[in-house]
């Protein structure tokens, strides 16, 4: 097919095989922590730090997942995470698509300068604003509340930036026709722009949701106790329980990682296309 492949010498062929063997070994080493997590989740706690370490449990206690779920209110954490990440995602999509439409299509004074301000806010690290946000939340009485977990995190301008780029590619003729028919800007936005932007809105939803599912610092600061704890915060509660229950912690980690892994497996092409746009969807 390509130059390399049509003219391979024996040394190149051996090289090709070595490349594959090497990457398989690297992948196995890389996956070891996942293996270690699951096999330790299902073994008796006394066996976790056995010397020498045993690769597989003597007794496969899948029931540990049930005990971990009951040991701390993991069902509650899971529900809280769904509410918080879901709420932030819905708000982010609504707010940033509206702003993006204004920047992409409407003419108003200082639009360029305002857009630069929106962009510049992306530079502000969360750690810089958490102290005043914490004071604001305690002043409002929003500590330990869903509004406190959701609202301050729902106004990232990243989506505005991404969606504006996308809206700019939509042909103007579609809107002009609708305007002649007498449609308002809002109708055009709802009926034409949003439906045409479904792929990008989906991508934004996916990255916002997973980012918020994994978020830790803000819940740590404004939540006390298990009632409003999200999953990452709940995992650290295991650490402060008396006596380290390693097997339950590993079961908890497995539960926390499962949604992200399943999403990655199910939507890999979609996720990879988002990252390939080089747009900085949640860089690490």
């Amino acid at each position, binding site marked *: 097919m*390509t130059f390399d*492949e049509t003219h391979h010498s024996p040394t190149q062929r051996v090289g090709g095989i070595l490349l*594959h063997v090497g*990457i398989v070994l690297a992948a196995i080493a*890389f*996956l070891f*922590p996942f293996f*270690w*997590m699951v096999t330790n989740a299902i073994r008796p706690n006394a066996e976790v*730090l056995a010397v*020498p*370490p045993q690769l597989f449990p003597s007794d496969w206690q899948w029931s540990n997942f049930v005990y971990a779920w009951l040991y701390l209110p993991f069902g509650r954490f899971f529900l809280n995470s769904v509410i918080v990440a879901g709420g932030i995602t819905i708000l982010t999509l*609504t707010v940033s698509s*509206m*702003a993006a439409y*204004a920047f992409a299509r*409407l*003419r*108003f004074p200082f639009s*360029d300068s305002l857009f630069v301000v*929106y962009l510049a*806010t992306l*530079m*502000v*690290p969360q*750690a*810089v*604003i*958490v*102290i*005043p*946000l*914490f004071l604001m939340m305690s002043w409002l009485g929003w500590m330990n509340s869903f509004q406190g977990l959701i609202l301050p995190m*729902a*106004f990232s301008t990243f989506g505005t930036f991404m969606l504006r780029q996308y809206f*700019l590619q939509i042909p103007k003729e579609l809107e*002009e026709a609708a305007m002649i028919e007498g449609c308002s*800007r809002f109708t055009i936005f709802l009926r034409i722009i949003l439906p045409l932007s479904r792929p990008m809105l989906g991508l934004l939803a996916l990255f916002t949701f997973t980012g918020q599912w*994994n978020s*830790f*610092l803000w819940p*740590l600061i404004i939540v006390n106790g298990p009632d409003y704890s999200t999953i*990452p915060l709940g*995992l*650290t509660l295991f650490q402060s329980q008396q006596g380290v229950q390693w097997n339950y912690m590993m079961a*908890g*980690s497995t539960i926390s*990682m499962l949604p*992200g*892994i399943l*999403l*990655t*497996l199910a939507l890999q092409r979609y*996720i*990879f296309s988002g*990252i390939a746009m*080089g747009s900085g969807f*949640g*860089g*690490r």
Partner: protein
Amino acid sequence: MSSKLAAAPSRAGTGRAKAILKDDRRAAFWFLLPSFLGLTIFLLVPLAASLVLSFTNWQLIGQSKFVGWRNYVNLISLDPSFWQVLRNTFHFTIEYLVLNIVISVTMAVWISNLRWGKSFFRLIFFLPTFTPLIGSAIVWLLIFTPGGFADFIFSTLHLPIPNLLTSPDLALQAIVIVSLWSGFGYNLLLFGAALEAIPQSYLDAAAIDGASSWQRFWRIKLPLISPTLFFGTVMTAITSLQVFDQVYALTRGGPGSATATLGFSIYRTGFAAYKMGYASAIAWVLFVIIMALTILQLRVQRRWVHYDL
């Protein structure tokens, strides 16, 4: 941007065009209102407030007053732990950044040269990326814990390495390892996509001219992916300067302050010691570093990144 806007409807000089313009302004107001209010309340006001707080001795309880530059002066001249925090942060960022970029570029090139399973292997290394860092960190905590799997490997191989988490000299390495494991898959994917976008004809032409695969990498592939490489480097640098989750889950900044980074120090000073004013000063040091880095890299970008293709 402005040229596209100006090209919009024809400027027939009619009243209708003016009416549309007026309608546009009104619509823009309502379309922007929610985001503008949210940004102001939850970002711009807190940002300004944290700057103001950094010039006070706010402690959550008791009297607080303006202390001028004293917090900043104390940070630099009186607080030995701050220098350690700064050192830890830079040590982590530089080591993590270099390793992340080298590993992800190497692996991306390696995988792009495979005949079978390119997307499969990219997927494998990407798996931790969408999962909570706290989850990965707790798994690695079990591996690194005294008497854990890592210690077993070290002693079996007769390596004179002490337990990572309890060693002041090596604890930061544990943070680096966890961060690499859960983070490099993102850049691998980013760079992998850039490599795929290089036209095969360029590489074929170079091969016909007798360029070795080493030369093809340095002379063709690397320059052509440099915009993406630059972008990935900036993003990774900015996130790693803020490292927090891994530190919290693995070491809580310890032993001593051996792994306390700026992000962790803001948390510890503000929410464990309740020195909100002092913590805000640390936060602004972090912000200034990140701003400086962003500006510096935007300048550098102009000089060495090849955008023409």
